[in-house]
C-alpha cells in the first residue's frame, strides 16, 4: 500500500548546486545506470517509550521531517551537464506500507522527478516495526543520513526535534560563493596543486581485461584485530592505520615512492556544519613519502599529513579536476579511500591477532558494476569484529590478480605491524 505524506517549507526555487552536490553529480554521471552503489540506506527501529508507533504517527513524523530538511525535498532542474538544485515549497512524499522488508535501493533515483528519499514502513500487527529509508547521495552523505535518523527518532519520541540551526544546502551554496567560501576554495586548490606536484610518476599499466572494472573484497577478523592493535600501540585511530596501509600497498603496485590517495572527508569540522543534512563530504589528498624506515613511521606521517588534507577538502570539484589535469604527466593519486564503518570505536587495549586467525579470512569478487567510477577505489566496512576491505580497480591499471594480491598484502602488512615494527624498505616501493 502506498500512502502520501504532505510537507511544506519556507523556501522554494532553484539555486546553484553546492560543491558536495556537484561532486556527487559527477560521480553519478560516471556510473550512470549503475549508480545505486551511491545510495545511502538506513533502518530505524521506532522508539516505543511513548507507546507503539502506528502508521499514522510514523507518517506524521515523516511529514515533519521532510518539512524540516530542505535536502529531502530537493530535486534537480536544468541541463544534465549543469543542473541546479530545485527546492520544493510543498509536495507529497509516497511512503510504502509493507509487512516485510522491501528492496528500495535496487533502482537508480530519478534525480529530476523523484524525491531524494524512499521510505517504507514495515508493519507487524498494527504497529510500525521498522522504518526503512534510502536516500539519494545527492541529498545526504552518511553523516547527514544519521542526523536525519536522529531527528526522526526524536520526532517520534517527543513530537519534535531540537531547534534547527545547521545550514541547509541552499545556504551552503551561498556560503561557498561568498568571499569567505572562495578563500577556503583557493586555499584548498593551492594545497592540491602543491601536494599533487610531489607525486612520483606511475610506472604501471596493464592490458584491460574483458570485464574491465573489477572489485575484490577481503573479509577478515585478523585484519580488524591487527588494525586495532596497531592503532592502540601508536595511539592513533584505526582509520589512520588503514589509510597508511592502503597508501603503502598502492605504492608497492605503482612503483611510486611518493604516493597519494584520496580519502573521503566528512567536512563537518566547523560548528555550523556538524549537523548539516546535506552531502558535504569531498575528497582530500594525502601524499606520503613511502621511503621512511618503518610502517610505524609511515603511520605517524600519515596522521599529520591526513590532518592537513582534511583541512583542504572543500572546493568546487570542477576546479579541483582542472588543477589536477593541468598538472598533467604520469603523476596519479588513487581514490577514493572511504572508511564507511558505521561504528568506529577503537579499543585502546586491543591485542594483536593470532596467526591462526588469518586462515578464516575470505576473498571474493563482488558482482557486477563495470563503470569508470574510479581507476582505484578502496572501501573499508564491516562490523561484528570482521573488517571488510574492497578494492575496485581498472584492469587497464591493475590486472585482476593484483587486486587480490593487494588485499592479501594489506592483511599481511597489518598483521606483521600488529606484532612489531615492519621495515618498509625493500617492500617494493
Amino acid at each position, binding site marked *: 500500500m502506498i500512502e502520501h505524506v504532505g510537507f511544506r517549507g519556507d523556501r522554494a526555487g532553484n539555486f546553484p548546486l553546492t560543491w558536495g552536490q556537484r561532486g556527487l553529480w559527477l560521480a553519478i554521471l560516471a556510473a550512470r545506470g549503475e549508480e545505486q552503489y551511491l545510495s545511502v540506506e538506513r533502518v530505524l527501529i521506532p522508539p516505543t517509550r511513548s507507546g507503539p508507533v502506528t502508521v499514522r504517527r510514523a507518517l506524521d513524523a515523516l511529514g515533519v521531517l521532510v518539512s524540516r530538511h530542505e535536502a529531502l525535498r530537493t530535486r534537480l532542474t536544468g541541463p544534465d551537464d549543469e543542473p541546479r538544485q530545485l527546492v520544493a515549497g510543498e509536495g507529497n512524499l509516497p511512503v510504502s506500507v509493507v509487512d516485510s522488508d522491501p528492496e528500495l535501493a535496487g533502482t537508480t533515483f530519478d534525480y529530476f522527478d523523484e524525491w531524494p528519499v524512499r521510505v517504507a514502513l514495515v508493519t507487524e500487527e498494527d504497529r510500525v516495526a521498522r522504518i526503512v529509508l534510502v536516500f539519494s547521495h545527492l541529498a545526504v552523505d552518511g553523516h547527514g543520513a544519521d542526523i536525519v535518523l536522529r531527528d526522526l527518532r526524536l520526532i517520534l519520541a517527543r513530537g519534535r526535534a531540537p531547534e534547527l540551526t545547521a545550514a541547509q544546502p541552499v545556504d551552503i551554496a551561498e556560503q561557498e560563493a561568498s568571499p569567505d567560501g572562495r578563500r577556503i576554495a583557493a586555499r584548498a586548490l593551492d594545497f592540491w596543486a602543491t601536494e599533487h606536484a610531489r607525486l612520483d610518476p606511475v610506472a604501471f599499466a596493464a592490458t584491460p581485461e574483458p570485464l574491465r572494472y573489477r572489485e575484490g573484497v577481503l573479509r577478515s577478523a585478523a585484519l580488524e584485530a591487527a588494525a586495532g592493535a596497531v592503532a592502540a600501540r601508536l*595511539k592513533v*585511530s584505526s582509520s*589512520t592505520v588503514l589509510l597508511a596501509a592502503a597508501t603503502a600497498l598502492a605504492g608497492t603496485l605503482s612503483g611510486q615512492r611518493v604516493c597519494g590517495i584520496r580519502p573521503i572527508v566528512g567536512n563537518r*569540522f*566547523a*560548528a555550523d556544519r556538524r549537523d548539516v543534512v546535506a552531502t558535504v563530504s569531498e575528497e582530500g589528498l594525502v601524499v606520503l613519502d613511502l621511503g621512511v624506515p618503518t610502517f610505524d613511521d609511515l603511520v605517524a606521517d600519515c*596522521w*599529520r*599529513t*591526513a*590532518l*592537513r588534507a*582534511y*583541512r583542504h577538502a572543500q572546493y568546487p570539484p570542477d576546479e579541483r579536476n582542472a588543477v589536477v589535469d593541468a598538472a598533467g604527466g604520469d603523476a596519479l593519486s588513487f581514490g577514493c579511500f572511504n572508511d564507511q564503518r558505521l561504528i568506529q570505536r577503537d579499543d585502546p587495549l586491543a591485542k594483536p591477532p593470532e596467526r591462526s586467525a588469518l586462515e578464516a579470512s575470505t576473498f571474493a569478487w563482488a558482482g557486477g558494476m563495470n563503470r569508470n567510477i574510479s581507476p582505484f577505489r578502496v572501501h573499508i566496512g564491516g562490523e561484528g569484529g570482521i573488517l571488510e576491505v574492497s578494492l575496485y580497480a581498472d584492469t587497464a591499471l591493475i590486472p585482476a590478480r593484483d587486486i587480490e594480491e593487494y588485499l592479501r598484502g594489506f592483511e599481511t602488512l597489518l598483521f606483521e605491524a600488529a606484532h612489531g615494527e615492519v621495515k618498509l624498505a625493500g617492500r617494493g616501493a
Partner: protein
Amino acid sequence: MPDSVVPISTQLRARLADLVAAATDGEVSAGELLAGEFTLPELGVTSLGYLRLFDAVEREFGAELDPGRPIGTLDDLAAQIEAGR
C-alpha cells in the same frame, strides 16, 4: 614578563581550554587541560577534535594554524595562534 600580561595569558589559557573541551564534545575537560599534567594527545584528542579546534581557533582569533605542526599543550596552541595571525 610584565605582570600585566599574566591575567591576559590566564584568560587566554582558560578560553583555549574551553575550545578544546568543546571540540572534543567534553571528552577532555577544561580542568584537565588547565592542570597541564597531560598533553592533548595523551588526553585522547583525536584528529576530529583537532580539526574542530583548528576551525574554532581560526574563527575566533583569525589565526590560521598549520595542522602539520604538533600541538601538545595549551601553550603550544597559544604560540601557534600568535604565529598564525
